[in-house]
């Protein structure tokens, strides 16, 4: 990367020299008004290491995928998870369900058919991370244990979780953010709003966390940090295809926070 940056500087300098050197009389006085500049900004840091297979959230999503019989690839990509990952914090980025294609082109499209799988995946992952269904002494470190996951799934009336985590797939490199752009295709179905489901997930997590903080309980396990799960949603909101205004369908990040005092907050803001 450093070599590429150096190459960029050299290419710019050379181009400037070539243009200003051979101008003859026409460029008299021109060089004073001449200048080039290389500005850096908007960088995205890498995680600097291998896949965070040992992270609780990674373990959770693998367990959820196993439960849902969903085959998912582990990838390296540039997403909104870059910031926490580069800080060494636990983070994963997953899709919002449905299908999409033509990423970062004007023909980018999203189809909400079959998005139930993705939404189930999100909900179960959040519940498992929140340690839902545990005996009231939740901690982030324990949240991914099979017992907790099992209880979490019982609470949301699903079946037993098969916690057979296989070794992670080979990491492949790609850009999975299909559907992250602004374009909305003709394939968009006239559907409900998955954002509401995401919001429901967030509030469920907040509720469960608050509920589990039983007042007067003394033997609270010392979790690592425990009380906040940061959810950054960057998904289509399923606008009706009759709507012409694409900006109204733009992604809306939402963030959620819950605390042991039972206070939960959520923001949904335009990006």
């Amino acid at each position, binding site marked *: 990367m450093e070599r590429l940056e150096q190459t960029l500087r050299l290419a710019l300098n050379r181009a400037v020299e070539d*243009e200003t050197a051979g101008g003859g009389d026409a460029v008299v006085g021109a060089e004073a008004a001449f200048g080039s500049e290389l500005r850096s900004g908007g960088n995205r840091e890498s995680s600097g290491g291998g896949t965070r297979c040992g992270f609780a959230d990674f373990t959770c999503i693998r367990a959820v995928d196993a439960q849902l019989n969903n085959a998912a*690839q*582990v990838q390296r990509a540039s997403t909104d*998870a870059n910031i926490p*990952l580069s800080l060494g914090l636990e983070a994963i980025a997953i899709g919002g369900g449905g299908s999409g294609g033509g990423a970062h082109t004007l023909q980018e499209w999203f189809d909400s058919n079959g998005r139930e799988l*993705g939404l189930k995946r999100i909900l179960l992952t959040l519940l498992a991370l929140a340690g839902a269904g545990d005996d009231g002494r939740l901690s982030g470190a324990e949240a991914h244990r099979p017992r907790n996951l099992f209880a979490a799934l019982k609470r949301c009336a699903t079946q037993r979780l098969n916690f057979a985590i296989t070794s992670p797939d080979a990491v492949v490199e790609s850009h*999975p953010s299909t559907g992250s752009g602004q374009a909305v295709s003709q394939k968009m179905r006239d559907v409900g709003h998955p954002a509401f489901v995401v919001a429901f997930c967030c509030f469920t997590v907040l509720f469960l966390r608050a509920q589990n903080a039983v007042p007067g309980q003394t033997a609270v396990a010392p979790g690592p940090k425990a009380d906040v799960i940061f959810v950054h949603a960057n998904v289509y909101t399923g606008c009706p295809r009759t709507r012409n205004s694409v900006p109204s369908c733009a992604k809306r*990040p939402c*963030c959620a926070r819950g605390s042991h005092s039972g206070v939960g907050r959520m923001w949904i803001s335009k990006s």
Partner: protein
Amino acid sequence: MACGIFFSTPRWKDSIAYSVVLDGAGADTIVAEALGSRRFEVIVRGPGGHSWSDFGAPNPIVILARAIDTFTATPVPATPKTTFNIGVIRGGTSVNSNSGIGQHESGYTVDLDGGDGAVGADAAAGAESGSGR
């Protein structure tokens, strides 16, 4: 971006246990590793001038085109996969003006190792065979 604000505020950063990012469509991927990228904006300023009477003055658009041509000829390693992209190009005033006129800037953004999406770089080219003012 909301994400950055949360992680630069100690109050939040120190209390967030997990982050779950929902990005794009599908249910068949897990991103657990962050791909880094460096972004640059290249700006070239010139004296500007008229296409006829100031012919020969250095033209920022030409310089940028040359720089892009030189830079994009750079070979990049396949392993580890390394990419670059010229994402946006802008600048210029009119077909009969040297683009560097006044404070106008010509610039393009370069995304190194950032991704393989084809971001369209549409350049409108104008040419005029001189005809005084």
